[in-house]
């Protein structure tokens, strides 16, 4: 396994952004729901590395997606939020208070809970900021839920393909 450096990080980011923008955003399931996969970069980023670099890269990947979609700043904000609170989400979904973070030590259910919480939070932020209408609050919530579920399935597939749970 190639060890991860800033260079490989950038490559992975480029791959994920391209996948998101050119493939997944052209898929519209049930008429209007688009799967969102690129936050896996934030979720599966190795623990115990430079946290500033992690935050900056998260911001950057969100901003890249924003640039392609024309939603300046919205995905960047949401991605940075889940990056900053990743350890908190991790602790919450595993009910351990240790500082030892690894997916290998997790049960599958806890792993899935972590994934779903992250993507749900991400979508909640993205869609509420994007629509920006309090009058449509329930409509947007439904949209967030469905999009999260669909994205969740894609994320699991991604995790299985790259054997994330065994490696990270």
């Amino acid at each position, binding site marked *: 396994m190639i060890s991860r450096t800033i260079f490989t990080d950038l490559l992975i980011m480029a791959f994920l952004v391209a996948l998101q923008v050119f493939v997944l955003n052209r898929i519209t399931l049930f008429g209007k729901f688009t799967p969102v996969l690129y936050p896996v970069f934030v979720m599966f980023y190795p623990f115990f590395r430079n946290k500033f670099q992690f935050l900056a890269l998260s911001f950057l990947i969100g901003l890249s997606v924003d640039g392609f979609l024309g939603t300046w700043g*919205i995905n*960047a904000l949401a991605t940075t*939020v889940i990056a900053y609170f990743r350890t908190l989400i991790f602790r919450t979904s595993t009910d351990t208070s240790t500082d030892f973070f690894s997916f290998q030590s997790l049960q599958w259910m806890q792993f899935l809970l972590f994934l779903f919480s992250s993507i749900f939070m991400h979508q909640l932020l993205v869609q509420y900021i994007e629509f920006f209408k309090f009058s449509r609050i329930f409509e947007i919530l439904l949209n967030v839920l469905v999009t999260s579920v669909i994205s969740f399935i894609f994320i699991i597939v991604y995790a299985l393909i790259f054997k994330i749970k065994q490696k990270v």
Partner: protein
Amino acid sequence: MGFLLRLFSKNALFVFFIFLQIIALILIFSKNAMQQSWLAGQTAAFNSWVSGGIDEGVSYLKLKQVNEDLVAQNKSLMVQLYGKQGAANPVFRKVHDTLGGGQIYTFVDGEIVFNSINRRNNYFTINRGRRDGVYPQMGVMAPKGIAGIVINSTDSYALVQSVLSVNKIRINAALKNSGYFGTLTWRGDNSRVMHLADVPKYVSLKIGDTIETDGKSAIFPKGVMIGTVAGYSVDNKTGFWDISVELSEKMGALNKVFVVKNLKKAEVQKIQDTMQAVIKKEND
């Protein structure tokens, strides 16, 4: 300063996170149409809130002045309302003659003290008399139409022949639309309806046409409302229209009237007297 530095170094990650979020928020509110319009709306609302508050404060400071103004206004209104109960001094109203020939009519306001509508010849009495310049042969108008002609006056009262009089009243009236005039009389049956005769048959009529005074009698000014056409038929005896006119003024509910004073009456009378003299000479 040292405290700030320590705070920064301790929470550097958090500060960095906030820094990134601020960049994202700036991007969101500067590049996205929806958020931009929201921001513009909020800014406008805040502006109007602040300036509204300032306005309110200023108007509160002005309340004393406003109050004094209102008291002064109330006082003058009360003088108008209660100050001239009974037969106080009349108010003369000016009518501006558009021909520029100077003023022809003035008006004396008065109130009815006695009224009748159910006889063949009806009369009413008003609380203005010679002292107020009210003399016989002056017209009397109500707010919505003509009411009668003064036939006698004492120092402070005047007797008025109501338009509801069978033989005594003949008023020159005209159709407002076409300008054709005729003679308005009452037949003694309905206190709301008078009859207009002497209008030629070829004049086209419509229910609801306005009838007004035509100003040829020197008693009423031209163009005072009388009523509207309520029905019409051809009078077989004369071959003219017989038009029923519904009076716009309810004679039974008359209260406030205006006496018409023609300032040029003497002059008109003089020139008409010379006409009489000419006719007399021709006959001789």
